[in-house]
């Protein structure tokens, strides 16, 4: 199982690097999907099959489809690729690289501090346990998140709503 973990970790890192360096937006998104899928495999290997399934259904299967959908609608041509190329200068890399190096340093430090807790061999957390925990101790968090989502939904509906006057105009024309 260790080999599977490292393999999918390598795939995730490489795919994410490709996401950043691709000039064509759709190609970048495809690599992002690969990255999400390999993260799902990592979750599965770590004993969280429910989270792995949700990662595939929600992130790779729904959110990324909407991203691709929007980019399809924008109809980006070859000129956008050229513009991306002009934006992705080597000098742009300095700031993000320093920040990520700091994060990587912190991560390595934490992992080295906590040697005793191996990544593998943890118990498998099934859907039932996830549900019991979500609707037990974390009920308040779930309710808050659902209210936030509802607010987002109502907001999107408001923005997408057709004005009553506009509708009348359309009716008159048709």
């Amino acid at each position, binding site marked *: 199982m260790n080999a599977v973990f490292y393999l999918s970790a390598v795939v995730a890192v490489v795919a994410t690097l490709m996401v950043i360096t691709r000039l064509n937006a759709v190609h970048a998104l495809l690599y992002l999907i690969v990255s999400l899928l390999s993260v799902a495999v990592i979750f599965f290997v770590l004993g969280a099959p429910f989270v792995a399934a*949700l990662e595939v259904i929600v992130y790779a299967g729904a959110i990324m*489809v909407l991203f*691709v959908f929007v980019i*399809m609608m924008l109809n980006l041509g070859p000129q956008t690729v050229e513009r991306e190329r002009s934006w992705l200068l080597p000098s742009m890399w300095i700031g993000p690289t320093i920040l990520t190096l700091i994060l990587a340093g912190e991560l390595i430090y934490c992992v080295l501090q906590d040697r005793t807790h191996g990544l593998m061999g943890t118990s498998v957390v099934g859907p039932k346990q996830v549900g019991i925990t979500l609707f037990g101790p974390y009920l308040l968090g779930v309710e808050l998140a659902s209210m936030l989502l509802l607010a987002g939904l109502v907001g999107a509906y408001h923005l997408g709503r057709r004005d009553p006057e506009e509708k009348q105009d359309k009716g008159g024309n048709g």
Partner: protein
Amino acid sequence: MNEIIRSLIIVVGVLVVMLSISAGLIWLERRMLGLWQDRYGPNRAGPFGLMQVMADMIKILFKEDWIPPFADRPVFVIAPAVVVVTTLMSFAVIPFAPSIGVVNLNIGLLFFLGMAALGVYSVVLGGWSSGSKYSLLGGLRATAQMLSYEVFMGLSLMGVVILAGSFNLGDIVEAQRKMWFCIPQFIGLVIFIIAGFAETHRLPFDLPEAESELVAGYHSEYSGMKFGMFFVGEYLGITLISAMIVTLFFGGWLGPVLPPLVWFLLKTLVFVLGFILARASLPRPRYDQLMSYAWKVLLPLSLLNLVVTGGIVLAVG
């Protein structure tokens, strides 16, 4: 060692059987359409026209495999493979008989939903990478349609999960020993079947490839075996949805006298024929009708079904 050989045989067996069933369905569909529309189907090549499948295969394999110069090459090549791979992956979690199944996953149902969600990319990317207006329009329609119907495809199945108390498809079949779930979950069944038609974009809901307005929709630019992959993917999808209906609502391999595998295949065949009959008899709706039907009728209905089922299970058990 025996275990490994056994599972290898099952994996290869499922692959071969599913691919040959989906090829055979091409013949079956044309014959049945002929029967129901009061004409002969393909009846010349071989007995009952069975060799028609071989003729079609030879023709499609030897066709020129042309990639349009304005297409996005790598994506154009990957797109048709996605649908076949994701659909075949879904068959891994289906229990064909008590001990015949590729993997016994405790999140089996979620795995199926995840693979169905990934299958959308095939049409989306196929439509986008072709670089043609008709393909793009077909791709857009397919994305919106499949995303919308996916939402309550999952929700409609949650009633079954509540009754069985598990996401494991084997456990769900076992839970139907007393009564098939098609009776207590009738609304769930109807919603799932409608969503299944939309997911496989079969005829009443085949607006992504509506030939009367979009040439051939997302696969307008495809030819040869790449087009063939979309075609095989569609028939694999029909088989998969039928197998899922049987597993979730009609007791899977349960049944008297005959061996379990035979029961499973017979029940699946009935629903496959149902898919073909729907194609033979139903006209397509308009696109806005399709979408508003999804969000204004089916979504509230599946939520209601979920709440009522949960309430009854809480009250009784």
